[in-house]
């Protein structure tokens, strides 16, 4: 099993969710995060003048998938989250050693 951690634009959550549903990936966990990278922050209006916020709102999607679903999942996310502008985000793949479904106690591949 792998955990796919995708940090994407907030407004791309919906298309990504739909695309994952399309390939049979339902379960996922989402958090609101802030990120910085090559994108150079965003200028916001102050009362007069403006200031720059370094950390921009992003969402982080975490999906644990079976090894055989990994590349499809990556694909779906990368395709749907892309705008081509700086700040589109990153996807990381992290090994998962065990999984448990709390409701049933099912383990590992059965738990995802």
């Amino acid at each position, binding site marked *: 099993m792998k955990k796919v951690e995708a940090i994407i634009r907030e407004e791309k959550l919906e298309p990504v969710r739909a695309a994952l549903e399309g390939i049979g990936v339902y379960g996922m966990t989402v958090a609101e995060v802030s990120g910085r990278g090559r994108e150079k922050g965003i200028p*916001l*209006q102050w009362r*007069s*003048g*403006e*200031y*720059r916020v370094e950390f921009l709102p992003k969402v982080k999607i975490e999906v644990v998938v079976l090894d055989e679903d990994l590349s499809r999942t990556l694909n779906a996310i990368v395709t749907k989250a892309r705008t081509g502008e700086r700040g589109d985000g990153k996807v990381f793949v992290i090994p998962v050693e065990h999984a448990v479904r709390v409701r049933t106690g099912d383990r590992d591949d059965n738990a995802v």
Partner: protein
Amino acid sequence: MSSGDTAWILISAALVMLMTPGLALFYAGMVRKKNVLSTMMMSFAILAVIGVLWVLYGYTLSFGPDKGGFIGGLEWIGLRNVGQEPSSAYATTVPHLAFMMYQGMFAIITVALMTGAVVERIKFSSLLIFSVLWFTLIYCPVAHWVWGSGGWLAKLGALDFAGGTVVHITAGVSAMALALVLGPRKGFTERHPMEPANIPMVALGAALLWFGWFGFNAGSALSSGGLAANAFVATNTAACSAAITWMSLGWIHRRPSLLGVATGAVVGLVAITPAAGFVNPLAAIPIGAVAAAISFYVMMWRTKQKVDESLDVWACHGMGGTWGALATGIFASAAVNAAGTDGLVYGSAALLAKQAAAVGVVWIVAFAGTWVIAKAVNAVVGLRVKEEEEVVGLDISQHGERAYGGL
């Protein structure tokens, strides 16, 4: 005694009271999340403290029987001789107690206004000590000079309908002096972004200020008739005109913002304050527009300096009040209010000169007096919180609270 006038003064007093919590929201929405409660707390605590001091001695110092034009006597201390009947000196158609309370609400908000300059770093205990001293040594005398019967600025012929000089210039100029003594927030000089925590809260605060300002300005007619209506219309129109102007300036520079509309409205309300009962309602349009433009660029300039007068009390209230006082000298018309006189556009420069003199005097007194008081408080008890306390935030460090509950 008139029951209509009394109803109007009582509800006006309630409206002005509401402005201080409105100010708390207006300011608190503009600081960082970790200082939201501390910012609100300043206004609420001042409301409580000055509310009591006013009935004890503030009213008699400000409005008590005149002593040489400079201060009120102690004849009315602890509300002695202030009863249900009208006074003979002020607002003769409403209970003396009503007039007393209405004026008290002005004292409260004036002191609270200054807190915008010192948010996110001042020690709460020191703020209270400073506030009590400032109220006693600056506010009461200046209020007497301008509004007390026998006050020397009033006798000079300077006009201040609802507090451009007494409230806004004193608060705005003193705020700057206090901020200079206190020094900037950690990170300010390095231009760390300090994002406002809650802009809807700012807008709600501005709305309550606007609403309360009808009591502030139209209530200052002290009776419920044509003059109150004139002041009411001028007040609303100035707020609208200044809000449009600020929004447009923001747009020219980049974007029209809600923070800008809210700030513009408040600045317009400030500027019309001294003028509302002396000028034609339509004069509120240029008065508001010019006020917004002045404050907008002064604020931009201030932000570029190393001066952390954090929420721009000086740029909004100091400059807005100054322009408003001068504008009264320009636009006043004896036809609007027989107690006033004709200003520049009606052919007489005398009033403008008197207004300028009053402005100058109050600037100097407020700045110098505040500087001395602030230095003294700083020397004796220290004005600032410790650096770690500032970093953690004043909500936790000063008040043991946080605004929004966790999990």
